[in-house]
């Protein structure tokens, strides 16, 4: 990029703006990878969380014990530890190294998405459990009284109802995952933070580049918040919350 940016000097915060503008395309490239990571993780995490959350809210202890242990482990340890366990840890076992999964488990992108998926699934399962338990029991009883089978009640009454109750919490989780995706830079992925660190290694201007990366994160978070607001309106979440 070229051009006369001297007018920017009036808005100078003591930052080298020309450098920021020069590296914006690279940072945008990193931001796209960040969005890819987050999108895969929160969608796959949601799919994984649905059975987990349903099992977790079961009244039978042998059904809820395993999801409970899973959720306890993934919520009780830092994402960084989980990421290192998958990316560096699995290589310790020869069985893993010789399996057909190895080409994927060796790739930082798949490691990061897999770990983030497992991590966020634990949180989403807990959100889903809260949402399922917040459904007024009368509604489920009404469905059963109308002669709906248990699976039918689950798919037509419980899940649609729980998804609306849980949506605001799910949108929070998506924002948290957007921020957590910065950790993928520690396993050599060039997402927004990783890209910023690479650029800094070349320019030695940490304040400028991290500032620009921070603006990207703020922008992405803002767009996500707006998007979820629209989704909430479309799903008429407000209208369903009358208790």
């Amino acid at each position, binding site marked *: 990029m070229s051009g006369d940016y001297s007018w920017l000097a009036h808005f100078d915060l003591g930052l080298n703006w020309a450098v920021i503008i020069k590296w914006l395309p690279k940072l945008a490239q990193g931001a796209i990878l960040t969005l890819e990571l987050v999108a895969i993780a929160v969608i796959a995490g949601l799919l994984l969380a649905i059975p987990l959350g349903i099992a977790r809210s079961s009244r039978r202890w042998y059904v809820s014990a395993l999801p409970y242990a899973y959720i306890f482990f993934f919520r*009780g340890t830092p994402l960084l*530890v989980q990421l*290192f*366990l998958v990316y560096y*840890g699995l290589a310790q076992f020869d069985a893993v190294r010789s399996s057909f999964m190895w080409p994927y488990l060796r790739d930082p992108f798949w490691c990061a998405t897999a770990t983030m998926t497992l991590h966020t699934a634990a949180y989403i399962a807990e959100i889903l459990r809260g949402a399922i338990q917040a459904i007024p029991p009368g509604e489920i009883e009404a469905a059963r009284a109308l002669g709906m089978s248990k699976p039918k009640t689950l798919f037509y009454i419980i899940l649609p109802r729980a998804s609306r109750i849980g949506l605001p919490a799910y949108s929070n989780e998506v924002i948290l995952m957007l921020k957590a995706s910065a950790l993928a830079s520690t396993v050599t992925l060039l997402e927004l933070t990783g890209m910023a660190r690479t650029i800094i290694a070349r320019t030695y201007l940490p304040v400028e580049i991290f500032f620009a990366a921070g603006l990207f994160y703020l922008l992405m978070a803002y767009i996500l918040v707006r998007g979820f607001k629209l989704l909430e309106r479309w799903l008429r979440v407000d209208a369903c919350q009358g208790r």
Partner: protein
Amino acid sequence: MNFDLYGFGPALAAGALMTVKLALTALCLGLVLGLAGALAKTSTYKPLQWLGGAYSTVVRGIPELLWVLLIYFGTVNMMRALGEFFGNPDLSLSAFAAGVIALGLCFGAYATEVFRGAILAIPKGHREAGVALGLSKFRIFTRLIMPQMWRIALPGLGNLFMILMKDTALVSVIGLEEIMRHAQIGVTVTKQPFTFFMVAAFMYLGLTVLAMTTLHFLEKRAARGFARSTQ
């Protein structure tokens, strides 16, 4: 599996101590920042409201890891300039100090919202009673609002502290010798990544359980004299 972790057991224990130290120091800074943020946000003075809002929005929108890196690497020039002014050109932020500032900043931004909610939850009549008794604004805050606020804010702050404790792992990225850093050193020597990171994971789980128990005790203590009717 080797029981003393190939001689790295004591180092990991020392790392755990460092993690706890970092978490507690950052907690202190975060509580101060959160309280200041909440006071700014609930004040009647517009610029202060705006400042509090900007603090909590901007800090919460940027990843913790980015704050850690920004504060550690971004303050090098500033610290050098400060150091030269005071005649000590080698002045720089240690990894511990950078970690405390970064994690405290993030904790404070979330705590701002928790404290604000707690302040708003206190009935208006209590403040008015203070005014009627002729207490100063400062007195009203320290004697009327603060003691009642803690009970309401405690569960939220507890959740934030759990998050803070897990975020301490991020400070290993700038080289602070806490649990993760020691685990990584162990891995480079022994080539047993799974063993070491699993041990680290269980250490964090242990710390989380410890914090949960403490919080449960604190919440019970803070709620003494209150019937659990309003949930």
